């Protein structure tokens, strides 16, 4: 069993799952199925984060995207659709155009990501020498503004706090838009 290098195996497993379900989102035409495939794709991405030693980001990916946003999305779709679920139809021309635009972007980004020498893969001996450091505590302290790793670098107190005001405002906006409509004579007539 020593011949299998497990991190590589799990990398291929998770990245394969993430890509396969992302393609499934694209190919499916039922919106509920799309949302479910997206859950699986994002869950596999969280696995990649754990594999890279970024437990905090992985956990947030699971909690926020998989646990929060998407479950909400599925329930939102299920609760608000009055008739049958929306089935999206895509014309062949749209497929070609979308493929060209998306493919070009994918090509450029992939090319860019592989062109930085430091971002390329490392040898197995080097990889074995890496000792994983826990990242949750430094990141959590960083979000409170205190960088335990290097006190001279920027702490994230302000974005962490100000985003709460932002979310409050966004919630108000969402509630406003979702509320039943009322007439507003002079402006509506135009």
């Amino acid at each position, binding site marked *: 069993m020593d011949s299998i290098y497990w991190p590589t195996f799990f990398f291929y497993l998770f990245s394969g799952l993430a890509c396969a379900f992302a393609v499934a989102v694209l190919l499916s035409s039922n919106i509920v199925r799309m949302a479910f495939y997206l859950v699986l794709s994002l869950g596999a991405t969280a696995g990649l984060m754990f594999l890279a030693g970024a437990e905090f980001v992985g956990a947030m990916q699971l909690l926020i995207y998989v646990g929060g946003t998407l479950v909400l999305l599925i329930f939102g779709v299920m609760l608000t659709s009055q008739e049958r679920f929306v089935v999206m139809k895509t014309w062949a021309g749209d497929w070609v155009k979308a493929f060209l635009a998306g493919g070009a972007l994918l090509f*450029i*980004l992939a090319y*860019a990501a592989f*062109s*930085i*020498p*430091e*971002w390329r893969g490392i040898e197995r001996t080097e990889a074995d020498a890496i000792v994983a450091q826990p990242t949750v505590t430094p990141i959590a*302290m960083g979000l*409170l*503004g*205190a*960088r*335990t790793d*290097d*006190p*001279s*670098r*920027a*702490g*994230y*107190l*302000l*974005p962490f706090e*100000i*985003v709460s*005001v*932002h979310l*409050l*405002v*966004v919630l*108000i*906006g*969402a*509630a*406003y*838009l979702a509320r039943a*409509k*009322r*007439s*507003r004579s*002079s*402006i*509506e*007539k*135009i």
Partner: protein
Amino acid sequence: MQPVTLQNVVDSLVDNTLDMSLPFFRPELALCATIVILLFVRIFKGGEYIPSFFIAILGSITALILAFPAEGFESWATMPRQELFTGMLVYDTLTAFIRIFLLSFVVLFIILSRLTGIADAKDGQDYYALVLGATLGMCIMSSANHMMMLFMGVEMASVPSYVLAGIVKGRQRSSEAALKYVIYGAGTAGVMLYGISLLTGVLGSAHLPTMAASLADLDIPNLLTTAEGRLTVMVLVLGGLMLGVGLAFKLSAVPFHFWCPDVFEGASAEVDAFLSVASKAAALVLLLRVGAGLGLTTAELPVADSADPPRVIAVAANETTAPTQNAVLVKQVADSQDATHVGGGPLSPVRRFFVILVSLIAIVSCTFGNLAAYGQTNIKRMLAYSTIAHAGFMMMAVAAAIALAGRDVVDARTAVSALLLYITLYLFMNLSAFAIVAFLRNEMHSEDIADYAGLIRTSPLTAVMMTAVLVSLIGLPPLAGFWPKLRVLQALYMAGGPLMTFVLVAAALNTAIALVYYLRVAKTMCIDPEPDTRGAVSLGFLPAAFVFVVSVPVLIFGILPGPLANWTDLAVSQLFS
């Protein structure tokens, strides 16, 4: 040196936050408090009888008062640049100026919203909370010193604006405008995040001055001589372009302007004023911050940050390029440096890239906006194209400022001063134009230019004020719009070089192109015969007074631009130092 213990870290954090950062953050805190109070009073019995207008106006005036410098404007002449919240934001005279500008605008805007009746008693608190939330985001945008704050500022300004675009419910056009705005905004924000992650990945930091230091260490002219190095530069260029996509969306610069006419037509005229004045001003200052932040190294760079090993990409030892090819490349670099006149130094390639990109987009936006405005029949759509054109004109000042900053700091300050003067006078011009459109909509239920025919006979004050504002938007003397255009042209002339001369010519030509479509509206209002079907149009006392107060500065500053120009000069006196 002290050992790093948790206690030390927490102590320095508390000191930095409470003593250094928060006192400079008071206007923003006042905005946050106002948003919370607006929502909170409704919980209590009788709270619904307190009009949200009063809370909003009191809160924004408090924030404005807090934004004024305690020791008077003269203290700006010696105010140092400071980093707040351990480097997240920067507080300098530009921040102080733009904050006063944004908060003054918001005070006027809240009064306008009350007068036109778009914020009524029942939904007022939502509307004002969205406006103040967006303003908070714009304040953060214009003082961002870190890629994270840049992104958050853009989002905090954009997301409430999406709702504001659809604030009038039950109107298809309005919902369509909001939806278009959201989709465009989300797409460009995603592209911008990709760009930011590429840049921060290569440079090893998201803090703008640290990124500039890493860029300087990369030694781009040397990188360009190797194949590996060129790939790295390609990634940096790609990241820069993708970051530019997000900024161009906020600036409604071509080719990311498609949302602008549709959103402006669908949203109400009041919201258009907000988007065209406050949002553009914040985006322009942010563009300047990115250009100056990445294109210039600052002396204030934290010592420990530069001690952090910069990620210099190893230059391949066996250079594949032949020496003659190297010489050609070096010569090309030197030639293009001549073309843009950005000065020397390790960051001159960054500045050259920024200047070329911004100037080209500025020329295209300005020309396209002016040409597309010709065929418009809807006044809001016409003003949307006019906004695109003006944003292009103002971007030219940013390009000139960054081009000059590498050579002559004093000249660069003049260019920024021209930009600030433009932004300030643009407030009066566009706010009064959109206010008139909104008040006339309430009276006539129309926003078509043709329906304004003969307005001078029934509502002379409105027609005269609108004409003055339009002439000022063209940039004709003796109205205020003339001076900022003149000073931008002057800055472009100072910047010199073939590229800037080309920009200068394009800018001058555009002023001539713009003449026709603005004057067409003025002609419709003042010369065309009045239709028989229309009754008397009168704005009422308070709306007329508002229009008068907002548009009179266009006349006053046209004749006496001195005080305002002195103020903007003072606001840039410590920049780039």
